[in-house]
């Protein structure tokens, strides 16, 4: 490069040669040469100065600007702790494990918990929530049964406290660099000492480069006969990683030294050390590169760096030299040797006592299993979060501005949903063998009252980051559509007691095809009351009903229930020919659970910038689209589905007082197995099927309902309690005829009606009232 420039300058001086040559030809040659060399030197110096100034600018610009692209952090819901909260001690334990708490004999600092038979002492870490600071507290929690009965701290009873939220994922830039920034003041004791001891002993004495260090490295290398030690200072290492590309060229090596010196000129040792702590590469998790000690601590130990102990600090410092070679998970022996070396250097330099050395060297590595880390555990949920974020934020902001995203993800609920999905489908596959090969499934769990999306499962491999069936599997919903059909009919003047014909249907379609649906049992059931047609999921009755009110009314009802996509009003829609994703189904059922108020599924609660300033909020919003009274009627019928219809299996496993309302769904040839249903505080939609859409040996009730039931069994949800709207009255009717009957008459059933729509005509009981049967009652409520 310099050569080129020198030769380029040649034509200049030689062009002027003519003039000077006339005066003194001999002397002039020497002076010309001298002049040329002088000019060359000057030019080179100017270039060097410019180069140096340029380097200086670069060094300062990058150091003072935004140093790193910070991925957005995604948090789960914080666990609230309050007296009366349904919370099992085991669930609290799982939450604390997710947060990396240490379970100790005597909790003495943040991030520690003390376990007794019905009492937990918990030293929380505190967290700056966007709506306020939750201080670090020393809590005493009392449990009774599955309930948190008392929350206390040193000052007495507390009405409520909340734990810090679990970090459940991030949104990474293309470089896939991930880091948690820390301040030097936040670094645990011995981290700086260990790092300096093992990497650059004269860090506080040199000016960027250390001749002593280079000499020592050379000496060591010569003695060993191979390259074992580099002479780079921490400053040089920082320059190398922070400013320069990874390729090992001579030019880069040449730039490293002046830049290191410049950096030292401008900044203090502590500033450089802090940047180093955050820049350093410490490991690889799939495509994600782990940078900085803050994240390194989370990645290897599952807890904040402030809580690390001496032996853990030493391990991290030792990793700097070769995170892959010394990987404590893959090469624990090497990692331990390296750690012990770091510890002995600390002892040698008098920074720890021989006793500390012995104690720390006796410890295991204490590295957490990477599977137990929360990151990567919720790919399907994060997929939904990212899609929602991309509607409002630019990709580069998401991956570089260090945004904080607060979601409704509930790790406890999520774990139960995962277990129910995996264990139940494994059993099904075992039972049906080859016929169920390739079975897949997905699941959406919400709180129907708030619309919070609590858990989303995209497949049987719940950690798989690929096809997200909960969002993207577009499948026939089968009978899940029926509540919308019946709700539309109720709005058109039908009542739960209206007689419906369950007789064959043959409908000639405009295109010449004939639509002739059939019942699941291939039987026609004659005239049946409307509520039973839904409970038993009779196709023929539903087809008659839907055709009578008009398919467009059903389409309208589906949209009012929250379906956003356009759909065609063709007759097969009445029996669920329409395809939807589980998330779309959840939205619809949410409106059914929330008394006719659309309560859109909400994964993100709030987004803040890196400093906690609110950027956007997704508040609780509702819109009433179906009258409360009509939804009350359909909820009755949907409870009947579970009490005596196609979903009876649920009560063989669950308490009778849950008042589950739901619906099974099976598509043509049993290609899809669905169940959607809710209790007081949980709504879940489960889909099972094969990706190639092949028929299966399972229906909605023998497939998806099993997963749903298993989930609720683990979840212990609250019962669904209805309030009777003012315009609803309960009337005893005769089940067979639909006529008004009496409480003690045979075959009588109490049904809700819109006031004024109950049957007027009564039926004679036959004067043969049946006595109350206490035994029956006992059986029912066992």
């Amino acid at each position, binding site marked *: 490069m310099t050569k080129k420039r020198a030769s380029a300058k040649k034509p200049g001086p030689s062009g002027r040669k003519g003039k000077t040559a006339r005066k003194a030809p001999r002397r002039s040659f020497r002076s010309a040469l001298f002049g040329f060399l002088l000019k060359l030197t000057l030019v080179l110096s100017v270039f060097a100065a410019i180069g140096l100034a340029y380097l200086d600018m670069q060094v300062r610009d990058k150091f003072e600007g935004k140093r790193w692209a910070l991925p957005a952090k995604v948090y789960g819901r914080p666990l*609230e702790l309050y*007296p009366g909260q349904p919370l099992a001690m085991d669930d609290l334990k799982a939450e604390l494990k997710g947060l990396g708490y240490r379970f100790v004999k005597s909790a003495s600092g943040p991030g520690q918990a003390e376990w007794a038979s019905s009492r937990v002492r918990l030293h929380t870490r505190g967290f700056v929530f966007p709506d306020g600071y939750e201080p670090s507290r020393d809590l005493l929690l009392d449990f009774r049964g599955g309930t948190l009965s008392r929350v206390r701290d040193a000052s007495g009873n507390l009405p409520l406290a909340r734990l810090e939220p679990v970090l459940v994922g991030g949104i990474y830039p293309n470089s896939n660099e991930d880091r948690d920034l820390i301040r030097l003041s936040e670094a645990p004791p011995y981290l700086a000492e260990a790092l300096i001891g093992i990497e650059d002993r004269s860090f506080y004495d040199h000016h960027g480069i250390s001749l002593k260090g280079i000499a020592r490295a050379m000496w060591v290398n010569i003695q060993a006969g191979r390259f074992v030690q580099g002479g780079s200072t921490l400053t040089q290492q920082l320059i190398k990683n922070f400013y320069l590309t990874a390729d090992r060229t001579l030019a880069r090596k040449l730039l490293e030294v002046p830049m290191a010196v410049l950096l030292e000129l401008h900044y203090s040792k502590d500033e450089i050390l802090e940047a180093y702590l955050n820049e350093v590469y410490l490991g690889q998790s799939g495509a994600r590169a782990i940078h900085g000690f803050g994240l390194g601590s989370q990645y290897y130990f599952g807890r904040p760096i402030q809580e690390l102990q001496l032996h853990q600090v030493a391990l991290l410092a030792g990793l700097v030299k070769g995170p892959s070679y010394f990987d404590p998970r893959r090469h624990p022996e090497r990692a331990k040797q390296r750690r012990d070396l770091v510890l002995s250097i600390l002892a040698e330099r008098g920074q720890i006592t021989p006793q500390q050395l012995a104690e720390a060297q006796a410890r295991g590595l204490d590295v957490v299993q990477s599977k137990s880390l929360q990151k990567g555990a919720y790919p399907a949920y994060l997929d939904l979060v990212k899609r929602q974020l991309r509607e409002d934020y630019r990709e580069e902001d998401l991956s570089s501005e260090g945004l904080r995203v607060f979601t409704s993800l509930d790790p406890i609920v999520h774990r139960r949903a995962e277990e129910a999905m995996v264990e139940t489908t494994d059993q099904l596959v075992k039972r049906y063998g080859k016929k169920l090969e390739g079975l897949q499934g997905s699941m959406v769990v919400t709180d129907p009252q708030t619309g919070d999306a609590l858990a989303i499962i995209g497949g049987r491999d719940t950690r798989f980051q690929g096809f997200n069936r909960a969002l993207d599997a577009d499948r026939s919903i089968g009978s899940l559509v029926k509540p919308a059909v019946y709700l539309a009919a109720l709005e058109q003047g039908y009542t739960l007691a209206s007689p419906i014909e369950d007789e064959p249907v043959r409908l000639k379609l405009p295109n010449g095809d004939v639509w002739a649906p059939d019942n699941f049992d291939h039987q026609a059931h004659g005239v049946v009351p409307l509520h039973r047609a839904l409970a038993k999921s009779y196709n023929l009755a539903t087809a008659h009903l839907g055709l009578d009110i008009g398919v467009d009314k059903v389409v309208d009802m589906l949209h009012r229930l929250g379906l956003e996509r356009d759909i065609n009003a063709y007759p097969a829609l009445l029996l669920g020919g329409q395809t939807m994703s589980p998330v779309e189904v959840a939205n619809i059922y949410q409106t059914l659970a929330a*008394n006719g108020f659309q309560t859109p599924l909400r994964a993100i609660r709030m987004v803040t910038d890196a400093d906690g300033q*609110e950027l956007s909020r997704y508040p609780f919003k509702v819109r*009433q689209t179906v009258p409360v009274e009509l939804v009350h009627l359909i909820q009755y019928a949907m409870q009947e589905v579970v009490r005596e219809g196609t979903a009876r299996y649920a009560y063989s496993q669950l308490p009778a007082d849950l008042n589950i309302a739901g619906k099974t769904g099976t598509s043509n040839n049993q290609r899809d197995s669905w169940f959607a249903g809710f209790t007081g505080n949980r709504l879940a939609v489960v889909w099972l099927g094969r990706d190639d859409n092949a028929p299966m040996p399972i229906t909605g009730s023998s497939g998806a309902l099993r997963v749903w039931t298993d989930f609720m069994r683990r979840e212990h949800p609250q019962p669904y*309690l209805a309030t009777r709207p003012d315009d609803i009255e309960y009337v005893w009717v005769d089940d067979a005829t639909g006529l008004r009957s009496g*409480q003690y008459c*045979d075959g009588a059933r109490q049904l809700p009606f819109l006031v004024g729509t109950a049957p007027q005509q009564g039926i004679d009981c036959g004067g043969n009232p049946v006595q109350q049967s206490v035994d029956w009652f006992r059986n*029912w409520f066992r």
Partner: protein
Amino acid sequence: MYRMRLGFLAGVALLAGCAGPGVYQPPVEDRSGSAPPPRVERGTGVTVTPVYDEPVISRQRLEGDAGLSVQPLSPPDDSPASIPTPEAAAPASNNPAVVALLDSARQQQASGSLGAAQSSLERAQRIAPRDPQVYYQLAELQRQMQKYDEAEQLARRGVAVAGGQPDALRRLWLLIANIRKDAGDLNGARDALEQARRY
């Protein structure tokens, strides 16, 4: 359990009757089997757990009989301009966590921290999603932000969970009347006032 709670409630209602707005512990219709059902259904007939029609009604009567003080609502000229604002002192929830959060929300709203108030109310809602007071305050907050549409929807959601709680229903309908008045819908406000008067 349910009956015990009813009895307790009735007692509290009696005590609180003269004290003002009274208690509004949710007397939810309990379809659960945790309490013995009032009647037994038989045969192939009813297998859906009965709905407690009578208890709710009798409870309402009970409260009425107990002289639960309902403020005279109707302004003489029946004009929506004079809709009484529900008492500042809101009824207390029975869950200390919810009480604490509703209190913080009130303070945050009063000091202009509307975002923080919204967060506190949503925390309360997650703990007690069937507590009408939560929806009352959520709606009141939206009203302060002049988001009248959202405010009314939230108040109506409150009405939907407040079945059988006349005091809460009255307050919520009064709030709806005020929201509509603020939004300039005077006829709607009059209708809401009419609804409030039913309780």
